[in-house]
């Protein structure tokens, strides 16, 4: 039987209309600002066709505290507590980056013991922050808080050590221009030794629970994929960049605080998907423990703080210092006009810039994938909004 072209076309059209679900309308759904998995007041506005994300747009600004403006009114030392609040899950790293920028501006030499202590706390902070990142990531995949609570246990121990040293757990305000605020208390090193002794077993437990979990693989593999070219072009950094296979780590590329004297490796992924980001973080924790071991073994004696005037007035000039924070490249750009306060204080926030490619990562996936992708980027809203 032959069919006229018209009939064939009409039939084809009918089939296409049926299979494409024509006639349906997109639905705009807001995830956030008050949503269980946006990790703060962050809003993701997605346009859905059924369950498929057609468009994703982020709306931020619910937490804006105008830190950059406030900092222009305060002296260099007074600005240190502000940096805690930028990324409240990695306060030590933020302290460190800011102090490095201020030291560059002031030309301060930091004593070796202070350098080692800074590395110790930056790495402890990385362990704590990655524990939080991985735990909440599994939660975003739909687990019922169990891995999160287990990882919180490690984070608690790190925060206890922070408290022991500087009296605060979250907003530590520990680093100073020229060193650190206090020397290590006597109890710290034994506690840290115990922590280092216990962690390998804990990590082995997490790996046993999570790494071969087929559902986790199914949820995170091939989701939120980004190519290395696109990642570099989008200025992504940290585990998100390294998961694409680009071995860029400022601790190796531009060592600060004597990172060049410690042995560690930079883990990189292959696919650039959510699972690789998770694995890179898991592996980085092990490398951080390796660094901590070396810091404890080679901790030098001497002063912990250089002699810097409390209200120093640097020469007019500018400095840009970066550290590898748990979330990526964290930079502080300071401009001095010779006054007691910075003329311009700018923070390069990894959380914000890592979101550059969120739309590209989410489109075409399902709503659930968009949530997993957002969780794998590991944002801190305090750092996005500042």
């Amino acid at each position, binding site marked *: 039987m032959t069919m006229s072209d018209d009939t064939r076309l009409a039939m084809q059209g009918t089939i296409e209309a049926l299979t494409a679900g024509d006639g349906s309308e997109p639905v705009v759904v807001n995830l956030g600002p008050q949503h269980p998995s946006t990790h703060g007041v962050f*809003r993701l506005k997605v346009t859905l066709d059924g369950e498929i994300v057609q468009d994703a747009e982020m*709306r*931020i*600004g*619910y937490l*804006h505290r*105008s830190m*950059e*403006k406030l900092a222009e009114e305060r002296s260099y030392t007074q600005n240190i507590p502000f940096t805690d609040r930028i990324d409240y899950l990695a306060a030590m790293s933020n302290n460190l980056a800011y102090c490095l920028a201020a030291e560059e501006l002031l030309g301060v030499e930091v004593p070796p013991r202070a350098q080692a202590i800074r590395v110790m706390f930056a790495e402890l902070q990385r362990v704590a922050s990655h524990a939080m990142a991985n735990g909440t990531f599994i939660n975003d995949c739909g687990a019922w808080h169990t891995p999160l609570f287990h990882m919180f246990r490690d984070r608690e121990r790190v925060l206890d050590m922070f408290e022991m040293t500087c009296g605060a757990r979250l907003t530590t305000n520990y680093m100073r221009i020229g060193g650190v605020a206090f020397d290590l208390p006597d109890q710290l090193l034994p506690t840290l030794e115990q922590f280092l002794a216990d962690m390998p077993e804990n990590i082995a437990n997490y790996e046993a629970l999570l790494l071969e979990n087929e559902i986790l693989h199914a949820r995170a593999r091939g989701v939120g994929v980004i190519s290395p070219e*696109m990642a*570099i*072009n*989008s*200025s*992504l950094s940290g585990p998100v960049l390294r998961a694409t296979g*680009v071995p*860029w780590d400022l601790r190796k*590329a*531009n*060592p600060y605080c004597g990172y060049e004297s410690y042995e560690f490796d930079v883990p990189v992924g292959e696919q650039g998907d959510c699972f690789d980001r998770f694995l890179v973080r898991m592996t980085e924790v092990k490398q951080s423990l390796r660094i901590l071991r070396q810091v404890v073994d080679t901790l030098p004696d001497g002063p912990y703080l250089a002699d810097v005037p409390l209200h120093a007035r640097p020469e007019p000039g500018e400095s*840009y210092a*970066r550290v590898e924070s748990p979330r990526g*490249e964290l*930079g502080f*750009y300071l*401009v001095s006009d010779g006054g007691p306060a910075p*003329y*311009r204080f*700018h923070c*390069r926030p990894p959380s*914000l*810039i890592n*979101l*550059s*490619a969120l739309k590209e990562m989410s489109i075409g996936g399902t709503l659930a994938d968009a949530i997993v992708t957002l969780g794998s980027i590991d944002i801190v809203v305090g750092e996005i*909004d*500042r």
Partner: protein
Amino acid sequence: MTTQYDATAAMEIVNASAPGAACVDEGVLYLEPDTLADSIRTLRDSDQSDLVFLSNLTAVDHELHFELVYHLQSLDLNHILQVKARISDREDPALPSLTGVYHGAHLQEREVFDLFGIRFEGHPDLRRMFLWDGFPGYPLRKDFLQMPGQVRAGLPGFPHESEENAWPVPGSVPQRPLHPNDPQPEGEIVVAEESEDPS
């Protein structure tokens, strides 16, 4: 160790394709604002400079002019270059957007637009990011709190908070003689309509 890329070498690369687009002053590379995007594209694509990674993009208000600061990084060659561009027009500062060169410039340019009021021509989605539409003025400008149209010192409340905290309606702004460098309020102040979301 990340090295500083030589500004003179970068200037030669830029000027080879577009003469006069770059100059070096006290060791810092300044680019002509009009051809900024093309110059940076040249620096990105050149094998010698290879500045593929936009590390940082921000602006500084130097009162008489704005200075745009770009930190460009080469990952493979491990060097960094600081690039600056100056705009002296305070009323409608504008320069080409880098979004065509670096996708990562997208959010950073929006941030600079939000806080400094510098327009980036060619940016696909240039809206306020941290502050809500209709926020009067640009907070990181040095003259922010002396703005005309500011009824009293300090910031007004959020639009929904109360009547007396509501924003100055354009007609009700006390008319004062404006300094030539001050932004004109008419074009900038938009009354928050109904109660749209604050982003």
